[in-house]
Structures are given as structure tokens and as C-alpha cells.
């Protein structure tokens, strides 16, 4: 386990008005503002945390959900380590659009192996009494679309927000560890190269 602090970029995607900015603000500043304006383009905040002994700086990118802001937000998908697909449990359409958001992300972030990329799904506005999307439906979608972890959150009363971000971090760290195992083979290759080079020259 390394003591180095690593910077992880996670990005919140989802329809306009599902509460992406509120989730970010709740997590980083522990505040909730019911009268936030539409996000224009992208915004981000950093938060330091420790997950399973790893020091991590989480860079949380909040994006504009409205279609008209599309060209402003998509250039910032690249380099993301994790994507939080967000919908609102009181808005069925936002749930139905999850697939589109996933596609948009994979396309613009230029993800090499989409089936391995860590997505986390958030059903926000748990505090609202009239649900349009049941937890079962949401879980089923997650299962069928790559077995993504699913959290029901409320930015308003802080339910599950921190848990969801920590899970995102765990997924990324797990990915990295898998990648770490691959490193030895790569190093072997690097060692080989100079050798072959010398044979070439001699």
C-alpha cells in the first residue's frame, strides 16, 4: 500500500435537475442550497479523503445536464477515473436516459474498455415522497448494464452521499490494483527492448 496521495477524477453525469451539483456540494462542503442555478458547462471541487488506507484527492467534476450545454461539457470527460451516472427517483425520464449518458461518456471520454470502466449509479432525491422509479427497477438496470453498484442518495438530507463517493474510490483503486499486477510483464518488455536494440546494432 502506498502512502502517496493520488488524484482521482470522478465525473457526475445525468439529466438536468437530478441534483448533480447538490450531490457534489453536499459531499464537499456539507451544504445544501435548494435554489442552485443550472450548471453551465462544468465545475469541479477537490476533496481529500482516505479509503482503505489510501490517501486520495478526489476531483469531482459536476456537469451541465441540459442538452444545450452538451458541447461545453463533453471535452471534459477525458481522463475520468470513474463516472457517476445520476438520475432522480422522482423522474422516470431521467432514469430512462441513463443509457444515453453512459454512451455519451464512453464516446467522448474515449474509454478503451467500456465493460471494465468503473461506473456507479446514483438514484438521487430519495427524500421526495412520490417516487417514479423503484429501487428494484434501478438495480435491475445496473445489473443488466455491467453490474454497476447502485446507491439511493439524498443530497438534501445527506443520505448515502459519502458512501457513494467512497465506493467510487474503491472501484477505481480496485482497477488500479488490477493494473498494478500487469506492470511486471510490462517491465520485462522494457528490459528486453534495449537488449534487442544492442543485438541490432552489433
Amino acid at each position: 500500500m502506498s502512502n502517496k496521495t493520488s488524484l482521482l477524477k470522478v465525473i457526475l453525469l445525468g439529466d438536468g435537475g437530478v441534483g448533480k451539483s447538490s450531490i457534489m456540494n453536499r459531499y464537499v462542503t456539507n451544504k445544501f442550497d435548494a435554489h442552485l442555478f443550472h450548471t453551465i458547462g462544468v465545475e469541479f471541487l477537490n476533496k481529500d479523503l482516505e479509503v482503505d488506507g489510501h490517501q486520495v484527492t478526489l476531483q469531482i467534476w459536476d456537469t451541465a445536464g441540459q442538452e444545450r450545454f452538451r458541447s461545453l461539457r463533453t471535452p471534459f470527460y477525458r481522463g475520468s477515473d470513474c463516472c457517476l451516472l445520476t438520475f432522480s427517483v422522482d423522474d422516470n425520464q431521467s432514469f430512462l436516459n441513463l443509457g444515453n449518458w453512459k454512451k455519451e461518456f464512453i464516446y467522448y471520454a474515449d474509454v478503451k474498455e467500456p465493460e471494465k470502466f468503473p461506473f456507479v449509479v446514483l438514484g438521487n432525491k430519495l427524500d421526495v415522497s412520490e417516487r417514479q422509479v423503484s429501487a428494484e427497477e434501478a438495480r435491475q438496470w445496473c445489473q443488466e448494464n455491467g453490474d454497476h453498484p447502485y446507491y439511493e442518495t439524498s443530497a438534501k438530507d445527506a443520505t448515502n452521499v459519502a458512501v457513494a463517493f467512497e465506493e467510487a474510490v474503491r472501484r477505481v483503486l480496485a482497477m488500479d490494483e488490477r493494473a498494478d499486477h500487469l506492470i511486471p510483464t510490462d517491465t520485462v518488455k522494457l528490459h528486453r527492448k534495449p537488449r534487442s536494440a544492442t543485438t541490432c546494432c552489433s
Partner: protein
Amino acid sequence: IWTMAELLPPESRGCNLFFLYDGSKVKGEGDPTSKGICYFYPEETPIEKQELLCGQLAGVGRCISELSSSPVRLLTLRRHKFAIHMKEEFFWALGSSMETPTVSVCELLNKIINLFCFYNGSVRQSYQLHSQETLAARWSQYLSYLLAGPSELHHVFSSLTTIDSTNVDPLLLLKAALILQACQRCPLVLAGCILFRGRVVSTQMSPDVTMKIMAHESETFKAQSPTGPNPSSLFGDAVSSTSVFLTMFELHYLQSAPVDRESWYRKQNTFQLKDSSLHHSLSRTPSDTVSSESVPSDPPSSQKGTLSPRSSASDNSDFSRVPSQSATEPVCPAPNKDASLEAEDKVQQSSTDDTFHSSGGDRSDSEHNATSHLSGEDGGACCGTVFDSGDKEHCNEEPHNGKLEGSNTGGGGTYATPIDPDETPLVPMTLYLHRVKGLVLALLVEPHFLCDQAAMEEVYHSCLASLNGLEAHLRSISPGAPGTAGPYIFAHFDCAQSTLTTNLSGRPGGAPERPFVRAASLLHSHFCNTETLQEAIIRNATTAVYGVRSAAQETYFLQYGVTLRNSGIPNHQDSAFSLPSKARHRLLKHGVNLL
């Protein structure tokens, strides 16, 4: 005896000489002229030359103003002209070649003086507080900032440098404007602007004030400027602050509703235009008034702290009181009060202070001390102990205020009814800066904003994510194709916002552009001097430049590659006459509408 012309630097273009001369230092027969020279630019000028110029110009200026009983604004020699400003015993001169429009020189001199007063307060008191060397360094900073600028055209029009809006998604400008509005939800925040790499992205302030704030971001300034105490280590290096001084006019402009502002500023601007000698704008020099009532009751040596507060002591306390009131209201009210309200305010004072302070539960002990320390006084500012160590100027203000309050009870009236800018004092304010790499959020805030931790955190956190995002957006914008030399040159000046749009490359000494810049500055001069002039064509054998202006804008246009048919007498086939229609068509795609 040297003639004036011999004394002047041969370099022809632009402003090349500036000095501040204090006549009060040279009274007796034996007093050397050099004693009165507070600052002289270029600094390497031999002292004999400095003395001669200062002595002669100040002498001529004084003589003429006494003969004519009106202040001198301009002295013109054969090859040089000097914008002049006289106040009390101070005499400022800014010299330039004849080629520079008079309006531009006079405006520039104003700007230099105003910039000094913005960061230092009254000139007289600054010279009592600080050494001549310290202040010389500051004059030099202000000069180098104002004489730099991206292009000669920017000098001619004294325009702000803005980001290239043709390259930027308008939604990002909206984003910037919304960030500023969000900050204003805190009642202690007056107004702000957002700058990116030294250019304006969005501003809520008049061009004048914006320009002064931008000076703070210039490189020379950053290196040497005296910055105030770091408001809070909570925010690290990202946040800094410095104290500034606003004229009452500026303050009123900031406090008026945005709708009124535009018309107000226009009025101000057209007034300037009408007035060919720029009396009005010159009269806005803030130093003017302050020295007129320069605290005779407080000898400078008595107490260091009492020197810093400016003459507007009674007004100070009015302002300080406003936020403690509005803290109980969700929306920032226009904090204008007239004299009749003042008594009521005083009654409420103690109770509002209490609610204000108890609202923040996690206050430190020192702040509680500050509250109690102030409770006996009328000052209302809570800075008392918090900044004792860092900012002496601030803290010792209160007793001073209290003392003057009684003697100045009529002051509330002048505060409520502006505005002869010449007669209004300077109001201390704080410039709060939040930096995210190349992006700067600059806010004018009430001085005690820095003591209100809750308010500061609120403002900081409410805009941090958006500033991060805006910075990322602006950084990712690639600069547009530079200087695509089209078949025409244009320059469009927006008088209300003081912004310039042009397709000039801005390269120094671009040879084909010289005639255009000269023609534009000449036409600009004429437009300023002749109120009824709306359109003009200026030409030589090879080029013709068309200029058109309205109350809100000035536009200049030059078309290349047209063979001028010019027989010397008016001729309907003269190609110059097609310039107006060409300009209309060509400039539409630059967003300039001349129809």
C-alpha cells in the same frame, strides 16, 4: 536659458513625461525647486532638467490659472502638450507629443491620479504617511501599467482589455456573470469583476473602477504592491485582499440598481463628450476633496493610526453600519440612507450588532472581544482586535470615527444626496481577490467583510466550483487565428462599456496600420470636441478612413485595395463615398451594427 523644447525627450509618440510637484514645499526664497518634486518620470532625467521643467510648467500653470481664475487643463507647446491637473498645492503634468489626442492625454492623467488614490487614498495624506521613495515606486507602477496596454488604439480610447468574445462561448460569459451575482447574495459584497490572464471576462463595475482593479493584476504591481493582511489562512494562497478607496460617485454607482447604472453612466459619458476640455472628468479626481478638509484637528505626528482613515469619517461609520443591518435581511438593500433615517439607525445599532454577531456560532474569542470592544462606540465595524496585528490602519479607525462623528453630524445629508464628484470624500473599501490559476475573482467588499468568517466562507464556497470550472473552460479555448489580415481594418469602441473591438493585429509598429491608428485618433479627437459631428472621412493620397459615432459607440473603417478616384473636387464617383455602405456590410459579421 534652455527652451522648453530642448528639455523634452525627442521620442515623439505617446506620453513621455510625468511629474507631481508639491508647491507647498517650495515657499521661501531659499527653497530649492527639487524639494517640491515628489515624482518625476522618466526617473533618469537629470535633476537640473527636472527642476527647470517643474519650475517652468508649474509657474506658467499657476500664472495662467490666477489670471483667468480657472484651473489649467492643458498647456500646448509647438511640439508637445501637457495635460495639467492642479489641486491645492499639488501640480501634475503629463506630457505627450502633439499627435496624441488631447482627450486621451487628459484622460490618462486622470487615470494615473485616480489609480493612485484608489490604492493609497488622498495624495496629501499618503505623503504624510509614507516616504517619497515608497510612493515614487507606486507612481512608477501605475505609470508603467497605464502606459503599457496591448495597443496604441487602446490608449487612444482608454479602453479596457477584454477577452476575445468572438472566441468564447457566450454561455461562459453568462457563467461569469452568474458567479458575480451569486457573490452579491452576501450583503457585504458590493460588486465584482472576473479577469482571466489580465483581461476582463465580466464586470459589474464601471470601466473606470474595473480598470483600477485590473492594475492590481498587472505584473509590476504584483511584484511590489503592498497587500493587506491575508484574510484567512483557511483559503491558503488563493485569497488575498488589499484596502482601496472609492469616490462617493463610484460608490453610488455601485450601489444603484443595475438599470439605473447604465443611464447614469451614459449621462456621465456624454457629459464628458460635450465638454471638450474634459473639466468634468478631471474634476473627479478623488484627491481633490480630501485635501480640502485634511484633518486639521489631527496633527500627523500625534498618532500614527489616526492618519490612515480618510476625511470621510462620519460616512465610514454609516457604511459600516449598513451590513450589520442588512445581515438580518436576505437580500442586499440599497444601503442608501438619508439623514432622517440616521437617528433610527443609531437606536437599532446595538441590537442589530448583537444578532449579527450571534448568528455565527463558531466565532473565535478574539471576535467576541471585538464585539464588546466596539459596543460602546458608534463605529460598527468589527475589525477591532481581529486584525490588530496585521492591519493597524483598520483597527484604529474606530476611535477616530467616534471622535469626528459628533462634529460632522450633517454629513449624512451629503451622503444621501450626491454628487458633485469634486466635493465628495473617499470611502475606504476592501478589494477581495480569489485566484484560480489565471482566473481572478475580484470583489469590492465592505472592510469588515474580512472579519466576518461566516460571510467569507459563504462567498468562497459558493463560487469555488464555478471558478474552477470557468478557469478550465477558458484555459481550454485556443486563441483564435491571430491577425488574419483582411481586406479592411476596423475599430469599434463601445463608449458605455469602454471596450474596443478591432481586427488590428496589435503588433507594435505594424507599418500598414499606422495611418489607420493616426486617422482614428484624429477622428476620435474631433468627435470628442465636436458634439454634433457624427460621420467623417479622413484621407490622404492613398488611404481613406471612415468614422461614424453615436452616443454609445464610435466606429472606424478602412478599406484596402480600392483605387481612390479623387480629382480634388467633390465627385459622386469618388470611391471614398462608398466607404459607409462597405463598412455597414463588412462589420455586420463582427457584430457591429451601423444600420
